[in-house]
């Protein structure tokens, strides 16, 4: 990849370029804004673009840098998934319900990037309330996969994934409740990381399923994900589920050798339903790691099949309560001329939510109802403990676990639209880590019919450093992550040619 072209630069390249004075933050910000303006009507990866505030942030960043006072991300443009609340900037969560919602506060993740000097290009598109695996449920229309605009980018963080894959942002924040970072990263051929539950503050991140939601980075390389995670991770007293544990420098171990690394390969991740091309790419990637000195260990995660059904009880149950606050009373959408309270509730929620969100609220409310709670919710929590135990047992003998991120490459729009269960099976390999609270990553590892395939790396609790090390080493001897969809590398304006 020609990284003299500004939009081909990784975050690490951008930091180096800003440091050396090769270009300014205003220049690269203008470059990205122009690209977004020219190209995003095709991809629909942004819901909101912050031209004026991005340029103001870039100017301020250049000034700080000139003063010799540049924090880690000073002047680096990134995008935030529209699930993170941004003070004074509309935060829609992909829903009509919040189409008019402008929060008076920043999410902790947003605040952390602001403190680190980042420039926020805009807010990326997403499945409504992060419910979806194809980005087709967004109120703002589907996002197109830059590798083939007739296919989905995955979801729910499809906007962030496409923005990064189409070089409309060098990195973007995202969230993962059941695979929403890893699956779109896989389908769009980029690198994405879901941290350990509790590693990144959820404050100001609009809740889907509180016990599963976790924010994380999406970028083109593992190194960039490490740089972003350095900004995102940390204890937050405003989130009681965030964990008070020191944050390492995630770039520190990137260059360690993989000699002696034990890689667990769960047999359940290579069974029926896995696309043969995807399987081949993943097997090849595992062989590559073996060449680097890793040992493959066949393991079993016996409760894998129960992950999807358990998830589709727990996540909707939590969502049914989390989304009850959208009632038209205080903010967000309210139906026209409500007759009375009941009418306001019913029409506001009936008109404000899309079908998938309604489906999950109904499922969740049902699972929690008197008489069904024990059979569904309590049982699902028991299954969740079994799934967690599978991983705890596996990590007794292996350092990381690997397999495919998603069972198939990107599929066409509408392909699974009428079959929610087929859609839910998209997350069959990613959901278990959310239930267990473990960190997971997806890195590009090949193609099937010119569609990217993702290799999933699952780490032990708080072992993000090791996952990043493995991913980075893989990216030192492979170039899957450097591939770009046709035209993306060269399209737009070249470096230094910002006007």
């Amino acid at each position, binding site marked *: 990849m020609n990284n003299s072209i500004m939009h081909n630069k990784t975050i690490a390249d951008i930091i180096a370029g800003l440091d050396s004075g090769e270009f300014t933050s205003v220049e690269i910000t203008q470059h990205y804004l122009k690209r977004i303006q020219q190209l995003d009507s095709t991809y629909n990866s942004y819901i909101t673009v912050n031209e004026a505030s991005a340029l103001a942030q870039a100017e301020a960043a250049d000034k700080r840098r000139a003063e010799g006072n540049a924090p880690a991300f000073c002047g680096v443009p990134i995008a935030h998934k529209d699930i993170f609340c941004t003070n004074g900037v509309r935060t829609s969560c992909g829903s009509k319900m919040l189409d008019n919602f402008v*929060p*008076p*506060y920043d999410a902790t993740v947003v605040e952390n990037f602001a403190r680190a000097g980042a420039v926020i290009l805009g807010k990326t598109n997403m499945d409504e309330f992060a419910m979806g695996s194809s980005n087709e449920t967004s109120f703002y229309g589907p996002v197109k996969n830059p590798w083939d605009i007739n296919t989905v980018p995955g979801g729910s963080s499809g906007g962030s994934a496409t923005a990064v894959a189409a070089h409309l942002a060098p990195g973007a924040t995202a969230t993962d409740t059941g695979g929403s970072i890893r699956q779109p990263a896989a389908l769009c051929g980029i690198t994405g990381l879901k941290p350990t539950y509790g590693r990144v503050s959820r*404050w100001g991140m609009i*809740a889907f399923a509180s016990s599963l939601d976790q924010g994380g980075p999406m970028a083109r390389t593992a190194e960039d994900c490490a740089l972003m995670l350095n900004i995102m991770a940390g204890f937050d007293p405003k989130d*009681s589920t965030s964990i008070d544990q020191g944050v390492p420098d995630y770039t520190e171990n990137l260059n360690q050798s993989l000699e002696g690394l034990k890689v667990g390969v769960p047999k359940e991740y290579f069974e029926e339903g896995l696309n043969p091309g995807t399987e081949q790419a993943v097997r090849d990637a595992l062989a590559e790691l073996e060449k680097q000195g890793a040992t493959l260990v066949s393991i079993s995660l016996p409760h894998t099949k129960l992950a999807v059904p358990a998830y589709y009880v727990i996540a909707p149950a939590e969502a049914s*309560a989390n989304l009850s606050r959208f009632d038209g009373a*205080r903010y967000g959408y309210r139906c026209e001329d409500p007759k009375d309270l009941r009418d306001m509730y019913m029409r506001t929620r009936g008109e404000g939510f899309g079908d998938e969100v309604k489906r999950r609220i109904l499922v969740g409310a049902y699972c929690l*109802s008197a008489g069904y709670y024990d059979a569904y919710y309590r049982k699902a929590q028991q299954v969740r403990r079994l799934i967690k135990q599978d991983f705890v047992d596996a990590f007794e003998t292996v350092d990381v676990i690997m397999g495919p991120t998603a069972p198939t490459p990107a599929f066409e729009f509408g392909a699974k639209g009428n079959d929610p269960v087929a859609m839910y099976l998209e997350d069959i390999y990613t959901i278990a880590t959310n239930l267990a609270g473990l960190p997971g990553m997806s890195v590009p590892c090949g193609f099937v019919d010119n569609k990217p395939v993702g290799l999933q790396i699952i780490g032990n609790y708080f072992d993000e450093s090791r996952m990043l090390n493995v991913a980075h080493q893989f990216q030192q001897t492979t170039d899957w992550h450097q591939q770009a969809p046709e035209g993306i590398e060269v399209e737009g304006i070249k470096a230094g040619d910002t006007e």
Partner: protein
Amino acid sequence: MEWETVIGLEVHAQLATKSKIFSGASTTFGAEPNTQACALDLAMPGTLPVPNEQAFRYAIMFGLAIDAEIAKTSVFDRKNYFYPDLPKAYQTTQLEKPIVGPGHVEIELVDGTKKSIRIHHAHLEEDAGKSLHEDFHGMSGIDLNRAGTPLVEIVSEPDMSNSEEAVAFAKKLHGIVTSLGICDGEMSQGSMRFDVNISVRKPGEELGTRTETKNLNSFRFMEDAIALEVERQIDLIEDGGRVIQETRLYNGDSKESRSMRSKEEANDYRYFPCPDLLPVVFDDDYIESIRKELPELPDARHDRFVEQYGLSSYDANILSGDASMAQYFETAAKTSGDTKLTANWMMGELSARLNAADLSIKHSPLSAEQLAGMIARITDGTISSKMAKQVFDGLWNSDGDADSIIEAKGLKQVSDSGAIETLVDEVIANSGKQVDNFRNADESKRPKMLGYFVGQIMKASKGQANPQQVNEILLKKLNDLL
């Protein structure tokens, strides 16, 4: 045939924390609507609850005070229902793992009998906001200042069998929480609210269907509401009807109750553990450190009052039960130097006046120091008890001290024995016939005949003569005439 009443209470006490249970907003009562509601209290998207340690501390203090087991692990649940004053559309409360396990308190009745009332559990939860239905042109206003105020909900066993016991239990809890300083006990501001579960049955029969009368915020309303509901249920059954399980509202002004909703059409609250709050674990050291810092509780104070001030058990019960009452009594008794007189005035005139004005002792217009000043003047003979009533009136309506009111009203009683002797001599001289009668009367009848003379002397002194001195001097002079 006799009916038996079975009563259980659910008591909500607002905890006196400075900030809310899950947010940093202030809990001060009476602010402009929605000025004490932050993003979390408004249930803005993305906001998260952070537990207030003080609320847990207070709940544990209560648990220790009622001799209950403190749960090592405390879990919050979400109780889901839609209502505009509940912004998240779920209340964060505790269902399966409440912080305070089973405990008990002892109540004392007017006849001196004691009874132990079991407490099923007490749990922490957040209060809702308020819906305001007036002044909004057919719409409703929502004030979320109260939303998120920490509450401890205390649930009793159905151990009470009449309103006296229920009120005694309620007062006991009021005394405990105010003594602990964990609740300000201001019932008129809603700091303590009582839900009363009532059923009736024939002795020996199974429990009858119960109703719940909600949100009673004074002891008097509670007493009246219980009487009304018991009568309603008995009449209903005796007329061949049946009691349905329902929630009722009592109107203290009209002294009527009405059905709010029946349990048959009740919500399914879809409780589940709140995933935003991890289980809170307390170790023994933490609980023990709280136990060590517990202040004096009503039962201990009762025994001390009996011992230290020589009060009867019943008097001590009244004066020690409520923290403000106890403090008032101790200040007044120590300042006046007369314990018995202080107790009598507090339980008599002061409590009657407070009741009539619907005020708690905390808001008494008459301070303990003012009352003590007045009592000291009774004790030293400056004023009579009768005059003291006028002084009391004066103190009730002003900030002055007893001496200035005595001065202003010219109430000083004449205790100058010379002046009283002159008055006695005058009256004896002008009452020849009565003096003759006295002299001729049988000795046993004489004490009764003194009344006439005392009356005349007091009249002549315009009520200011010291009655005790008048009695002494009169008796001596009349005996001299025998």
